[in-house]
């Protein structure tokens, strides 16, 4: 009973976070904030759903595969978030009318 309630709460919070990331990707004003919404909110939502699946399905093979999914997701999410932000900067959509500070330009790295 307790397990059922915990799994249900984790599933609903995770799915609500993914839906919230969808809301953010529609409402936020520029690509940097949209990349932030996807690489934080949606990533945390998937994390909670995987943890709920680990608690729900306790057979050893499923737990092994799901822990591998969890590790792969935790390792790759910061890298893809960095790649998204870097792509939106390098494609010229995050210049000073959008952002107030442009540190890579000031330090002569662009």
């Amino acid at each position: 009973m307790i397990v059922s309630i915990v799994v249900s709460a984790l599933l609903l919070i995770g799915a609500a976070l993914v839906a919230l990331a969808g809301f953010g990707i529609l409402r936020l004003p520029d690509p940097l904030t949209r990349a932030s919404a996807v690489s934080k909110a949606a990533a945390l939502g998937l994390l909670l759903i995987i943890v709920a699946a680990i608690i729900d399905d306790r057979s050893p093979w499923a737990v092994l595969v799901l822990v591998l999914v969890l590790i792969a997701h935790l390792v790759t999410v910061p890298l893809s978030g960095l790649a998204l932000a870097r792509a939106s900067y390098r494609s010229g959509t995050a210049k000073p009318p959008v952002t107030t500070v442009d540190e890579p330009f000031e330090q002569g790295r662009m």
Partner: protein
Amino acid sequence: MEVPVIVVDISLVLIVAGALAAIVRAAIGPSRADRVVAAELGFIAAVSALVLIAIRLDEPVLFDFALIAVLIGFLTTIGLARLVTRKRSDLSGESS
């Protein structure tokens, strides 16, 4: 399998809402970076839906698909981001 089916169904509906938002942003996105961000959200929604369908049908085999989808999604995001980055530096003649 102890979770109520209706909870999994509600979660699937919420994830479909997120995926629809990603589709809309990929269609109207003003820049290429917006479309890459929308593709990343689409991948995360697809993996979440895979895990939820595995719970719903009680088929642990589908978790293997989730593992492969996470890795492929990461590679695709990196590739698309590099493509967006490479495009402008090719046009302006800078080295990346």
